[in-house]
């Protein structure tokens, strides 16, 4: 399931809902991305996440479908927020559930690694020197390439 929204989400409620009624699930893995107050040595007051409505949902649905093709997953969840977020706020939740833990762990890591290089989101940080667009990290490309085949 994919959701792109401005509002916050309740991690516990989302994970409960994801697994409800699916008693074949033996393992649930999740990752939550948060806004940090520091980027390198720059203090971050807040950030604004911009996205490409339409393509975002499409890209996330493709990532979800690819995870299902690669691992035996009983449930997949991606929630990504947009708009202005302050340090400590949640940005993204990805979760995978499977009969066994390995598929859940691997699938979860795959989701966030691919999302970071394929989903059309951009971060604008508020710093003491003014607004600054975040640069893509080479380490994110390396992380995503681990899953290329």
């Amino acid at each position: 399931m994919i959701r792109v929204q401005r509002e916050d989400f309740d991690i516990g409620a989302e994970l409960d809902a994801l697994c409800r009624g699916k008693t074949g699930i033996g393992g649930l893995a999740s990752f939550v991305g948060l806004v940090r107050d520091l980027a390198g040595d720059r203090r971050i007051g807040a950030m604004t996440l911009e996205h490409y409505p339409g393509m975002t949902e499409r890209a996330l649905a493709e990532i979800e479908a690819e995870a299902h093709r690669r691992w035996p997953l009983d449930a997949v969840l991606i929630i990504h927020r947009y708009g202005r977020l302050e340090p400590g706020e949640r940005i993204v939740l990805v979760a995978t559930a499977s009969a066994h833990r390995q598929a859940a762990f691997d699938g979860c890591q795959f989701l966030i690694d691919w999302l970071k290089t394929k989903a059309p989101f951009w971060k604008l940080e508020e710093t003491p020197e003014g607004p600054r667009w975040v640069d893509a990290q080479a380490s994110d490309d390396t992380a995503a390439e681990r899953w290329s085949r």
Partner: protein
Amino acid sequence: MKLLYFAWLRAKIGIAEERVDPPAGVATVAALLDWLRTRGPGFAEALKDLKVVRVAVNQEHVGRDHPLRPGDEVALFPPVTGG
């Protein structure tokens, strides 16, 4: 053709979207980028370093040799930074 600009590309170009009718001969993404650069200082500045410009056609990531058609939705943006 509908063009969309995101993040610092939008800021430099100064608009979020527009409809354009590129000249005949602009048949690929590469040719479109070359043409857009000639449309003014904002475009020239935004498209100065094409290594940091990504393109989607009809909401799919594409390469520079991707063909273009009149009704396409073409988006230009920097490498993504979500998550």
